[in-house]
């Protein structure tokens, strides 16, 4: 299928993710921040779709927007919003943070300007139909070990969380 | 009964039966002990009811009545004491937890205070209501005008 209005959707989604990303850090109400983060994640899922990576986009929606963010909201609802709204928005590290952000931004600009020289420009032949299958083959073939390590790490995190939540198990 | 009478003598004013029901009139000073003895020694383990009657013409205006029941003997007894307005009665909550709400209701309706009650406050009427309706000097259409005005926003609830 031929994509429609590619440029428009790219700038739309990119802009959306940036604006909502900024909203995440600027909103005082944590629930609003979380919702803005969801918008960011959804916009990114749209970008993945434009990159012919539908599987990644689907996983992005189902895991991040539908799963993790729901848990985020779940936790945020339990905390005292009154208290967090009175707290200061930025602490004293904001300057260091700004520096880091600027450095990263500079790197991006550098890559964008010098990019064509550094990276060879080529279009990879990505078969949209078998994209999902290829991810599967990669994960369970070439990167089997890394994949298993990652899942083990998650298991450790789960156990840690359970131990933290319950004193007596 | 006779055991009680021996122990307290004049404290037991009257112990008799009317229409097949036993009752006991006890001096208010020993009521706590009497109730405790009924529970401990005579197995009256179930406090059926606590209530009061108002006799405005008497010197001791109130009758406070405990109706007790023993599962073991299948018997009821009414223990009664007389107190004046403003006197307190020892609470029976520590003997029978059931007494909790019953005493609150007596307090609500008659204004009799129970000493040692964990949370003596009104139960059926609003907390800031004035007056105790089951006293004989409380008219049947009487109401707490201020409360009605403040809470319902109307002149009269009648």
């Amino acid at each position, binding site marked *: *299928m031929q994509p429609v209005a590619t440029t428009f959707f790219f700038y739309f989604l990119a802009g959306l993710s940036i604006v909502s990303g900024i909203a995440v850090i600027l909103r005082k109400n944590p629930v609003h921040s979380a919702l803005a983060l969801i918008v960011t994640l959804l916009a990114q899922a749209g970008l993945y779709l434009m990159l012919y990576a539908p599987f990644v986009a689907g996983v992005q929606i189902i895991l991040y927007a539908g799963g993790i963010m729901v848990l985020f909201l779940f936790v945020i609802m339990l905390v005292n919003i009154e208290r967090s709204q009175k707290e200061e928005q930025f602490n004293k590290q904001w300057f260091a943070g700004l520096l880091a952000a600027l450095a990263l931004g500079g790197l991006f600009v550098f890559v964008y300007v010098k990019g064509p020289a550094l990276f060879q420009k080529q279009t990879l032949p990505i078969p949209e139909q078998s994209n999902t299958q290829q991810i*599967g083959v990669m994960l369970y073939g070439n990167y089997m070990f890394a994949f298993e390590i990652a899942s083990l790490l998650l298991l450790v995190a789960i156990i840690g969380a359970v131990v933290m939540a319950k004193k007596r198990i | 009964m006779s055991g009680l009478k021996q122990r307290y003598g004049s404290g037991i004013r009257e112990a008799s039966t009317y229409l097949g029901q036993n009752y006991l009139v006890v001096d208010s000073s020993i009521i706590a002990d009497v109730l405790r003895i009924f529970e401990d020694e005579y197995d009256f383990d179930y406090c059926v009811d606590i209530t009061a009657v108002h006799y405005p013409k008497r010197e001791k205006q109130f009758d406070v009545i405990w109706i007790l029941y023993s599962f073991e003997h299948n018997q009821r007894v009414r223990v009664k004491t007389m107190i004046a307005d403003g006197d307190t009665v020892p609470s029976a909550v520590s003997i029978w937890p059931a007494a909790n709400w019953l005493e609150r209701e007596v307090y609500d309706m008659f204004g009799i205070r129970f000493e040692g009650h964990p949370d003596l406050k009104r139960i059926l009427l609003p907390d800031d209501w004035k007056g105790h309706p089951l006293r004989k000097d409380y008219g049947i259409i009487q109401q707490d005008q201020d409360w009605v005005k403040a809470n319902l926003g109307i002149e009269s609830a009648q």
Partner: protein
Amino acid sequence: MLNYITSYLSSSVTPGQAGNIFWATVYILLVFVGLSLAVISMNWLERKALAHMQVRLGPMRVGPHGLLQPIADALKLLLKEDIIPDGADKLIFWLSPFLVVTTVFTVFIVVPFGPTHAVTDMNIGILFMLGVSSLTVLGIVMAGWASNSHYPLIGSLRSSAQMVSYEIAMGLAVISAVLMTSLHGVGLYGVSASGSGTGTLSMIEIVRAQLEQQTWFVFKFFPLGLIAFVIFAIAMVAESNRAPFDLPEAESELTAGFHTEYSGFRWSLFFLAEYSGMLAVSSIAVTLWLGGWLRPFPNWLSGSTWDLIFSLFPGATFLFLTVVTFLGVRKMPKHPYFRLETFGLAGLGACLGLVALILFIPAVRDRVQDIYWFSIKVAVFMYLYIWYRGTFPRYRFDQLMKVGWKVLLPIGIGVLILTAIAGIVL
């Protein structure tokens, strides 16, 4: 232009795949209208069926047998005062019903009513459906939180916990069905040129796989397919917040759960979303396990005679409805008060008869029977939903979690592993 419109009619793919925007729009509108109609009729049907289970009549006043009741309800809801609580978070309160409705309706983009009767076919179809429908919980959580009240808050906490945990059992069941698509024919990893018959996430291809393998997945690797299907069928009830898993809106505990503070139009959006959600998950179940649009027994009762007989079913159904309606017309009281209703009912019967006649036309018949079989299967699920509601008490929250995590999840994993083993060994 006309050519552009007509050229699609002969194609054998969905308008989305064909890149035909006109027909895609038409399909979207059709799905939207059809869905709304389905929700409305479901509303009437639920009230009637539930009423008859409970020895009462249900709506009887508005129209014959309360047929117009849903319309009256909708009017009432639209005219009702729209209340936004004073302490509510206005923006989120306003946004959440729309979010819920939008996500639920988006899901229907990939629902295959027939080999070409879907708005589009994605190669991540099932993932897309699960993903987007998992966003509805966000709307519910937002609604509960934004209401700024205790009951909605508890309702939304419950619903988020419930949906997240049942999604896992649901996903496992789905994976075992997806696995079945690849366990036939070439290649263990399912890498194949055509993509059909081997591992796929596309809704249409999953149904095609069932056609090629000559079996509905519910019967495949018996009883593995059946168990996976049952897991899904239980989890989907929990996902759509229906009895006996309707804890987020448990009337007796939380008054109305997350939508306690909603009224009028906004409330009706939640209502619409709930019923569309039920339809959505039912269509997933039908697609994955019950052969989607395939007619019954394509393997045993094959041949052109059987094809003809089965293709007459849609028309026959409407003919049956027509007959029932006209019997109802004859039974209407003769009192002049009922004259209008009698005429109305007769009119409805005439319309149904007309539809039946149209459905008997060969060209229409062939195009429509897929949709018919799909809808019938979904309707069975809808009836099950009503039936559950009529018979089951409500689970308690900890028991609900126990069922999800300690029963469905282990069984789901077991079925997944066994399916994989069965696929290699058999």
